[in-house]
């Protein structure tokens, strides 16, 4: 292995033993990091180093390591998933950083995402929002309808598809100065509201999901647009406007 063009970096990492611990930033040095390695590989190297020193490795969430699962939540140098656009942390590469740089690595910060350990946060608030209405109640056992039997305008299908690419990572919440979950919830609301199968329950769905979102303690939307910029899937603010319309019209038209 060549030692000439590896990066020497100072890492400031959030360490917190458990949900009760107060936690603090710790400083580590890593050296000779290949510019071809991914950010998570760099974290693996750091952890190996810590284990060799007999220390507790840094806990962080990861699974697919290819931008699909949404678990690799890290707030890097003041941005969700670091400086890149439309990527997750696992898709971020060390060539984005300079030799000698100091890198801040923190967990998502939101009251509704409590820290479990180090960089791992509890995102089950998203699951509870989904459980409150993020589905379509159709019977799929045995007699599934042919998808082509339901006409859907191409433009709507495209918008629904774009909304459905949300991976539930929570970068929108982490980036928002208000820790608002509007981008996530609006993507989920839109993905169904745009399609005939989802329209049936649209009013009830948006009311339940928004009410669950508010109960979880996420903030309000100030339309700063930070979420849209930091979202690894490029989910658009169009969805938030659509959710506002859906919610306001459900307020006047729905049973509750």
């Amino acid at each position, binding site marked *: 292995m060549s030692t000439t063009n590896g990066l020497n970096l100072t890492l400031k990492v959030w360490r917190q033993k458990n949900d009760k611990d107060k936690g603090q930033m710790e400083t580590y040095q890593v050296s000779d990091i290949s510019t071809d390695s991914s950010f998570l590989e760099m974290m693996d190297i750091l952890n190996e180093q810590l284990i060799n020193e007999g220390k507790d490795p840094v806990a962080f969430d990861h699974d697919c390591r290819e931008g699909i699962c949404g678990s690799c939540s890290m707030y890097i140098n003041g941005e969700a998933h670091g400086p890149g656009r439309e990527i997750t942390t696992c898709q971020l590469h060390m060539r984005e950083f300079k030799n000698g740089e100091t890198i801040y690595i923190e967990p998502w910060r939101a*009251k509704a995402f409590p820290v479990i350990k180090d960089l791992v946060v509890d995102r089950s608030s998203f699951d509870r929002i989904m459980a409150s209405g993020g589905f379509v109640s159709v019977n799929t056992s045995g007699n599934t309808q042919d998808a082509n039997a339901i006409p859907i305008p191409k433009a709507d299908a495209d918008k629904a598809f774009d909304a459905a690419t949300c991976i539930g990572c929570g970068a929108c919440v982490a980036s928002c100065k*208000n820790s608002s979950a509007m981008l996530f919830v609006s993507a989920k609301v839109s993905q169904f509201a745009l399609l005939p199968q989802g329209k049936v329950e649209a009013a009830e769905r948006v009311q339940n999901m*928004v009410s669950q979102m*508010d109960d979880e303690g996420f*903030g309000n939307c*100030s339309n*700063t647009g930070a979420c849209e910029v*930091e979202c690894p899937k490029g989910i658009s603010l169009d969805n938030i406007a659509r959710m506002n319309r859906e919610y306001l019209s459900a*307020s006047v038209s729905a049973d*509750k």
Partner: protein
Amino acid sequence: MSWVKQTFSSSIGRKFAMALSALFLLLFLLQHFAINLLSVFSADLFNEVSHFMGTNPLVQFALQPVLIFGVVFHFVMGFVLEIKNRNAREVKYAMNNGAANSTWFSRNMIWSGLVILGFIGLHFYDFWIPEINVKYIQGDMSGMINGEYRYYEELVHKFHDPIRVGLYVLSFVFLAMHLKHGFQSAFQSAGARHEKYTPGIKKLGGLYAIAIPAGFIFIALYHHLTAI
């Protein structure tokens, strides 16, 4: 819970109410600007319109209370949202790069708003309280002083003081910042967003946010400089 209460205590409902009060304030500001602008062209016309606005019962007892409610609602709701939003993040980031993804104006509506609130305080002290005093406490509804309308004179008199003119100018700069983000934000909060017209709304908002505050600054400076 009634459906109205349920709607307006939700995050989306609150923002909708915020947007409605803001759109109302935007219309009011346009109207206020139009009348002030008259003072540059014709003292007589300005006097007459001011007298009409100051004494017409519809304006005084129907529109004025709506305006006061609109302003108070807007800043009280602004504080409520700010507090809720701050509470949604208990531990702050050690390193946060807000500039990477959003404008300073959009992240600091509360600060530009607070400067505007301070300005409204000063403005009430300067014009509104003396007006109420003359009209409803002393009971003089004539709008006259020594047989002439007093409004234009009072306006020019207020803009003598360079410190006051400076404060007015500074406040309008903050108003411009507030509106640069706020104008288009109000439409987004109300769900009015479409590729057909959103670019137009953003352009109009940019124009409004610059032209109206700049116009107010011009009027203040005009009276300050011409009166010397």
